[in-house]
């Protein structure tokens, strides 16, 4: 098993972790964290799988480079929307998550 494959499998684990966090955490800032971890998992899978033979592959590397920059743009926009919600409702969670109070809070 090559080390690139180890990173690809880690990527799969990170993706799943982030997905569970995205669904379970009611706080929007935590959802954004989980979303970023999910993205990092996808990037690791892309590059890890392409390089599992051992040779570096510039094509997925360039795609991931683009992806990282787009991810921070999405994060910033999500944070702006979450802040807007905080200013309007006084809390940073979606209105549907009513039972969220007993969960981890600030």
């Amino acid at each position: 098993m090559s080390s690139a494959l180890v990173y690809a499998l880690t990527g799969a684990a990170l993706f799943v972790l982030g997905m569970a966090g995205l669904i379970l955490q009611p706080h929007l800032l935590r959802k954004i964290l989980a979303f970023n971890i999910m993205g990092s998992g996808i990037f690791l899978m892309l590059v890890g799988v392409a390089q599992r033979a051992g040779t570096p592959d510039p094509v997925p590397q360039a795609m991931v480079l683009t992806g990282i920059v787009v991810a921070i743009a999405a994060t910033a926009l999500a944070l702006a929307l979450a802040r807007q919600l905080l200013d309007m409702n006084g809390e940073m969670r979606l209105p549907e998550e009513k039972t969220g109070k007993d969960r981890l809070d600030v």
Partner: protein
Amino acid sequence: MIFDLLLVAALLWSAVQALTTPDLFRAVVLFIIFGLLMALAWARLDAPDIALAEAAIGAGLTGALLLDAVAHLHKKRREQSP
């Protein structure tokens, strides 16, 4: 290979911690650590370009944005309950 396995374990640990720590500030700091570990992982994957970008953007700028949001949140909390 041992280094890779250690790095992978640290990555998974920091991701789990960032997602489950009760304190939001700690969660963001752990996420920044996660970003720096990701930069190391890219260097191990023969991708120095991504390592550079991840260290500067993934850990640095995203961290600054998130910390600023946490500060904003705490300020709001203080305003609400003086």
